[in-house]
């Protein structure tokens, strides 16, 4: 590397000005980001230290809301459910996505574009609409049960979202359905960046399709896997729409997640400060997970 030109007294001002210029380019984005993301975020953290019903005057709460968050029985159930959703929202879609992407990329066929579009379709639907559709699919006399009956498995038919055992995986499967397309697309773009000569070389070393996938494809898309994991993991821990629309957290508390609890605290019991405390704890947990994944991605280099 070249050493930086020594800073003379004459060049210093010029240099400073040049250092400053890039920030000007960032400024509009930074202003918008601060106004709509950072300030509300800070405000929500600030509100978490107050008892506030959303309308009237607030009273200082100190850490009381945080104490309440950690002594809430429902919350531990909600957190456990949210963490479990990582399997449905992140792990299965990334594994499935990697396999599908490898198959699609291996030999471009006619119709690949269509497959990609169809797989990505869930991403462009509002999650509320996704929830409404799946609630219908899962209902007692919905298409899934009709299909089961038609193929002689009527005994397995049930109101899936009302079942204490099946409601959770049923809601999780909706997450898988939504996330998989995104993972396929992300990982496909990663695979297409891999130098074809690597595959040639591996083939010369008598690598089969499985070997190619394990030794060339997977290492080549590590960065994309990290991105896919990060995005879907946030979706899992911060899940709300799908759960709220399909089960509302039921039956019992089987599918309750922190997002639904936060919503209830704000709109049902008007405990806005407590809701903000819970939201802050949730974002802290998400940040820890995102940092961990980022680290994993780097350490395997």
């Amino acid at each position, binding site marked *: 590397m070249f050493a930086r030109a020594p800073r003379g007294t004459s060049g210093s001002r010029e240099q400073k000005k040049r250092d400053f210029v890039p920030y000007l380019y960032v400024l509009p984005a930074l202003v918008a980001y601060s106004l709509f993301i950072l300030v509300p975020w800070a405000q929500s953290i600030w509100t978490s230290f107050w008892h506030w019903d959303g309308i009237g005057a607030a009273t200082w709460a100190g850490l009381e809301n945080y104490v309440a968050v950690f002594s809430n029985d429902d919350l531990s159930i909600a957190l456990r459910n949210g963490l479990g959703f990582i399997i449905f929202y992140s792990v299965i879609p990334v594994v499935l996505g990697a396999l599908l992407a490898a198959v699609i990329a291996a030999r471009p066929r006619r119709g690949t574009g269509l497959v990609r579009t169809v797989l990505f379709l869930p991403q462009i639907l509002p999650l509320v609409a996704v929830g409404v559709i799946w609630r219908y699919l899962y209902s*007692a006399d919905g298409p899934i049960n009709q299909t089961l009956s038609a193929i002689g498995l009527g005994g397995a038919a049930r109101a899936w979202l009302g079942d*204490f055992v099946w409601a959770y995986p049923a809601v999780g499967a909706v997450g898988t359905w939504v996330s998989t397309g995104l993972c396929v697309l992300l990982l496909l773009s990663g695979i297409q960046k891999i130098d074809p000569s690597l595959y040639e070389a591996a083939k010369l070393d008598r690598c089969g399709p499985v070997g190619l996938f394990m030794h060339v494809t997977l290492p080549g898309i590590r960065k994309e896997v990290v991105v896919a994991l990060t995005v879907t993991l946030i979706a899992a821990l911060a899940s709300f729409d799908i759960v709220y629309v399909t089960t509302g957290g039921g039956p019992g508390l089987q599918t309750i997640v922190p997002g639904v609890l936060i919503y209830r605290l704000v709109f049902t019991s008007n405990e806005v400060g407590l809701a903000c405390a819970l939201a802050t704890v949730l974002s802290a947990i998400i940040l820890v997970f995102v940092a961990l994944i980022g680290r994993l991605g780097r350490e395997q280099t």
Partner: protein
Amino acid sequence: MHHRTFLHSVAALSAAGLFLTACAPGGTTAATTGDQVAASDELSTEEVTLTLMSTPESGAATEATIAAFEAEHPNINIAYSQTNYEDYNQSVNLNLSSDESPDVVLLNAVGNTVKNDLVIPLDDYADLYGWNDFFPSNQLNQWRVAENGSTLGDGGTLFAAPAGFSLVGVYYNKKHAEELGIDTPETVEDFESALAEAKAGGVLPVQLGNGEGHAAFIVQLAGQSASGADAASAWAFGHEGQSFDTPENAAAAQLLVDWADAGYIPDATTVNGTDLQGAVENFVSGEGLFLVDGIWDAGKVAEGLGEDAGFIAFPGENTTGIGTSVAYAISSRSDHPNEAAAFLDFLRSAEASEQQFEQGFMPNDPSVAVADAGTLQGDIVDAWAQIAAENGLVAFNNNATATMNDTLKSGTQQLIAGQSTVDDFLDSVQADWAKTHGQ
């Protein structure tokens, strides 16, 4: 960007954000009121426009009443608007505290609205117009709020005036009853034997959808028909020292469990996976002898079952029903509270009552509630009259606290699926209650 620098920037920006917002969230002053006007039934002779906000379900009859009111008061114009139930409840307090506050609002719960003085006390108007003599006391008590802002009932300040009433009772399929040779049950024993006979005759005894927690209706009705309406109301209104853990409520919760065990209701998964509308659809398609539901579904049931649709009050020691009124309140920011109160008073007129009855609500003026005997509407009018005669109307347990609906929903779902015991259920309900109303 280097990570440490990034984190530093975030910290710095957050700190800046805190400085920007370094004051208590929310309003610091009490709700500013509109023009201070003494309560009077002498109305302005100038042109006055009142804005009114409601929901489609509750507001249809009210909207239809406006023309008759405007004909009587040519200088008063009422602008009606509506939003769906859930959006309405989320936005009503924000609307009331905004500069563009509507004058008259549908009030679904007193909670935060009354606590923040967003609506005005109506006692002066009740005296002026004689509402206390017109309405049976338990029809207004639901909107009377004590000083503490959470206890309801007798002696509290009145904050809303009823437009019409809904009632929860028992629908039954007359065709099934006839084929099974079952008479309309009048006692608990009759009811139980009717259920057993239906089961033996291959008819589902009770249609039920508990996806949204409506099994709580059965628990409440069974409990209060044993304990009587007064005891049940005291708990629902949050009176000091009340408990949900009574022998009557324990028996009522056990009843639900027994029904599930005996197959009197569909299997637990189907019950918990079906919402109220799904259950109504099943019922009108002939699945079920009984259905516990509110008269808001009377139109649908009448249309689906025709002459086979019947309705009774829940059979028990005491004749009771669960009921609430569609009620309206006046914004603290209204500049025309007297004219708004005149409209509230108009809601008990014959014209308004007819509109309510037509939309399926029990009207403020019972004399307009006339229906042919033997029809579903005739049955409902009879049941309403019986309950009124015994002063048996009790407010919804679901409204006992802001969170009670969620608690009853998950509680009954667990109970039916055998995931919790009757004691667990009673404890969780009482714990929720105690959080709002004290031990």
